[in-house]
């Protein structure tokens, strides 16, 4: 009770203090710099990013400094005026400091509430239809408020240990600078502004916000424990640091124990983080060889993603065939965050081993299959999905009430070492339970059908696909049918985006791309009876991809700014064109899969074709500036990298640095070096018309069913050139 009455008095005193009022005023308007695109951490790709996340990040950084300053000033008050000789006999300095810290935290909470009220009308006006109340409150409560509270704890802990205002502020400054610079890529360490790097307008942000809350927990336990230990360092009876610590700990023995427990818990949470997997930094493109004795003829799954916890659970039944006449090891790839709880073959439990060999966003489960020709294998699995750690930003997997995205091994365990013949369809069917507002869409030629409404309000959907892998998206999708260049297209996008799609004539742009590619490279051969899907994904996708039956692209491709002003620069709308063009280069014309990671891939011709399309639409200067010059710059930058020029030093680097440089080569080669080679080929063969003819012939050539791929040699030979002719200096 005494604590509460003191807290009330101290809080009231703080609010009447002039310095506190100045700090509150500055903190309330601290989000303002985030509204300018020049702000270092501005997120401009989406509206919620620009008008909610950016101000929250600016507020988090600026107000952290303000409240750290206030904390140190307030805690130093007694020491500065040498009043401790008078106050210590009256009231315990531990209690005084505890009350003071809590009072400053209350001030921070009230400041945060004020910020949210002040910026609400502006955010509402700017975001319009995509505004989300829950996200608004969550972002400010999880991004800005914890930064202030952590700043208070950090600076208070520093002061209570050192009893020096300057060193406390310096310590805070060091941790702030580290979080803003060196640690900025680590979502757990970037305490001052959190790991928010984008916000989706049209879909969900559950996973990113969960990771923010998780990282805040790590820091609250760490700084909470540190704060409690520092409270034990409050100087008593004229003793120094160690003497006071011993004295205080004797009287309040439970405090250091509790503090140590918090610190241990914080360390555990840090190392046991559930969001990223533990894949090795080097990318291993080698695939395991299929076992010719094993095959799978059908898959059936019953799935239930849990939107409250972000976990995914399922039971999958495989119709397997083992012609070896002896037990064989079947390897299945699964998300590294999932656990397999049981595996039965023909009704009997069979041994299985989780290899825990995280690699490229998956891990392998080895199942001992019995020596039976026909096996019905039932596997139960589930857990919280982890993302591939090669990309430090989170949110690529989403399981939330507004959006669900499950890709390949995130959806269900994928048979790895099983023989697969693409000419023999393998039906993959099943049921999935989804929130009532979400409509599922399958990537590719798969279909979904509504089955029933469940007693709890969820809906069960039936899905039908083919192959060992399924990619499923579930959101507030609406569909529009378009016909372009003789091809039926189903365009699926978020209902929130309908107005912009209509206003900016997106379907007109789609038709332009189709007509260009059909005119230059011929119609898409394999969609005679099928519709091609174009699917809008969330902004966390960062680009898009294409496959048999579908091209996907993130919501940024349809941003209002990008659609209205295509001359702003190589924009998200060109990503849309790129992903559609993949239907010609990558699907209609296939590229060798066994050289995945090598420079020659579908990306080279796709990037080149996108450049040619943009040249036709926007003119040569635009295309040169945004494509050719950019390719050359990227290639030069990579070649000029010190470690690329001196590979002997590369071995001295830590693994993750070495891997990032090696991985960079793959990206630059595919997306920049190869398009430059194709451009050079265009010049050498005699111009655009000649290269278009060559590419048309390659796209419509008669393929060898045994090896249907277009190789680099094929391209060079078709141009009647040699490989050396296309070397780029």
């Amino acid at each position, binding site marked *: 009770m005494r604590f509460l009455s003191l807290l009330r008095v101290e809080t009231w005193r703080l609010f009447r203090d002039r310095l506190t009022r100045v700090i509150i005023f500055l903190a309330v308007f601290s989000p303002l710099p985030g509204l300018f695109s020049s702000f270092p951490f501005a997120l401009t790709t989406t509206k919620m990013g620009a008008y909610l996340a950016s101000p929250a990040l600016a507020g988090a950084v600026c107000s952290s400094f303000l409240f750290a300053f206030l904390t140190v000033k307030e805690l130093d008050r007694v020491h500065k005026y040498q009043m401790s000789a008078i106050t210590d006999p009256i009231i315990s300095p531990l209690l005084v400091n505890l009350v003071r810290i809590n009072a400053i935290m209350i001030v921070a909470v009230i400041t945060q509430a004020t910020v949210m009220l002040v910026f609400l009308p502006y955010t509402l006006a700017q975001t319009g239809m995509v505004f989300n109340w829950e996200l608004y409150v969550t972002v400010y409560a999880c991004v800005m408020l914890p930064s202030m509270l952590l700043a208070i704890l950090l600076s208070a802990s520093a002061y209570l240990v050192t009893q020096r205002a*300057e*060193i406390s502020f310096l310590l805070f400054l*060091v941790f702030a*600078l580290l979080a803003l610079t*060196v640690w900025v890529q680590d979502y757990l360490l970037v305490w001052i502004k959190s790991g928010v790097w984008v916000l989706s307008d049209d879909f969900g942000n559950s996973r990113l916000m969960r990771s923010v809350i998780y990282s805040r927990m790590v820091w609250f336990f760490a700084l909470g424990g540190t704060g409690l230990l520092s409270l034990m360092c409050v100087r008593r009876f004229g003793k120094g640091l160690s003497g006071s610590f011993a004295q205080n700990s004797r009287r309040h023995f439970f405090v250091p124990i509790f503090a140590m427990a918090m610190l241990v818990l914080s360390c555990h949470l840090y190392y046991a983080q559930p969001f990223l997997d533990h894949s090795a930094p080097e990318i291993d493109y080698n695939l395991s060889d299929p076992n010719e004795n094993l095959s799978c003829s059908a898959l059936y799954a019953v799935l239930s993603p849990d939107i409250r916890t972000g976990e995914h659970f399922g039971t999958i039944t495989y119709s397997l065939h083992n012609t070896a006449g002896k037990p064989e090891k079947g390897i299945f790839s699964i998300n590294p965050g999932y656990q397999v709880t049981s595996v039965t073959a023909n009704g009997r439990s069979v041994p299985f081993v989780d290899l825990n060999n995280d690699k490229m966003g998956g891990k392998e489960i080895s199942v001992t299959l019995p020596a039976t020709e026909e096996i019905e294998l039932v596997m139960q699995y589930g857990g919280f999905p982890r993302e591939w750690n090669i990309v430090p930003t989170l949110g690529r997997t989403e399981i939330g009430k507004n959006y669900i995205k499950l890709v390949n091994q995130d959806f269900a365990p994928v048979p790895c070492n099983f023989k697969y013949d693409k000419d023999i369809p393998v039906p993959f069917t099943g049921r999935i339970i989804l929130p009532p507002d979400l409509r599922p869409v399958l990537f590719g030629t798969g279909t979904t059908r509504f089955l029933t409404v469940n007693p709890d309000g969820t809906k069960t959907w039936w899905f039908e696909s083919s192959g060992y892998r399924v990619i499923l998206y579930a959101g507030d999708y609406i569909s529009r049918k378009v016909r372009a260049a003789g091809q039926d297209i189903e365009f699926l996008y978020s209902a929130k985006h309908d107005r912009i799609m209509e206003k900016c004539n997106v379907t007109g742009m789609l038709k332009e791309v189709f007509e260009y590619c059909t005119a230059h490279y011929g119609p898409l051969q394999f969609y005679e009876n099928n519709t091609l899907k174009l699917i809008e994904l969330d902004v966390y996708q960062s680009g898009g991809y294409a496959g048999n039956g579908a091209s996907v692209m993130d919501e940024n491709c349809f941003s209002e700014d990008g659609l209205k002003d295509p001359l702003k620069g190589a924009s998200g709308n060109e990503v849309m064109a790129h992903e559609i063009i993949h239907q010609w280069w990558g699907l209609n014309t296939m590229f060798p899969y066994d050289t995945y990671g090598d420079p020659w891939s579908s990306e080279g011709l796709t990037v080149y074709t996108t450049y040619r399309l943009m040249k036709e639409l926007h003119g040569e200067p635009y295309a040169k500036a945004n494509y050719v010059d950019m390719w050359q710059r990227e290639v030069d930058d990579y070649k*000029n990298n010190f470690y690329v*020029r001196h590979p002997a030093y590369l071995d*001295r680097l830590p693994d993750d*640095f070495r891997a990032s440089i090696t991985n960079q080569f793959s990206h630059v080669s595919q997306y920049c070096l190869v398009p430059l080679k194709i451009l050079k080929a265009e010049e050498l063969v005699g111009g655009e018309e000649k290269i278009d003819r060559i590419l048309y012939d390659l796209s419509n050539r008669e393929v060898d069913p045994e090896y249907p791929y277009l190789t680099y040699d094929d391209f060079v030979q078709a141009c009647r050139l040699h490989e050396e002719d296309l070397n780029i200096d």
Partner: protein
Amino acid sequence: MTKLFWYELKRLHANQFFLGSLFLIAFFSWQVLSGEIILGIAQTAPFSPWSFGYYLSRILPLLLIVLLFSIAFFSSEQERQVQAITLATPVNQGRYLLIRCGAMIVGYLLLSFFTIVMSLVFNASLFQYTSFGDFIVPAVFTLFPVMLFTLGIGLVAGEIHPALIYVMMIVMLLLGFLPLPYWADLMGGSFFAGYPSELGVLDPSFGIPADILASRCIFSLLGIALVLAVARRRSNTCSVD
């Protein structure tokens, strides 16, 4: 005067604040070395003079803030109260201020030296690089002009109002993040990161363009002038007839 110098040196730096600053700067330096500098700056080696200069520019805001804290110490209310005693001594106040400036400079140089040593150890242990003579010019270019300028500006700010020194700290912090032209970038980060690429050759030898050298000289002279001005003002204000 020598005795006074050593006394002020001890008073300013033989304390927990200096030791704490040393520790914090060491921690921050190592993070910068192993997180950023290790990849090399502007396509040069991580042990090139350009990378070394960039490294120093990253640490510079902290070094300058410690320097400003030293100035704040001498401008604090407590020190002003002590002045009532020191003014009664026959010591010329202007010279006394210069002695204090000397003590502050020594502290700054000690911290800088420690930072430099960390970089040398880093380069020697990871890359077996020991040609440390290459680092002298970038070190002098990065550390001295801005130190003199900050010292001058800080003393002037302290003369006007002690709180202004804290405003200066915020300014120093922000300068590290603002995109300024090379001649105006006090920290030098943009110069070390951008200028080598403009030379059009790989691994260019370290050189400072005349205009940037001139700007650094101007900053240094300005700083010295401000220090001398404050010292003279103290001499005149407190002179005994």
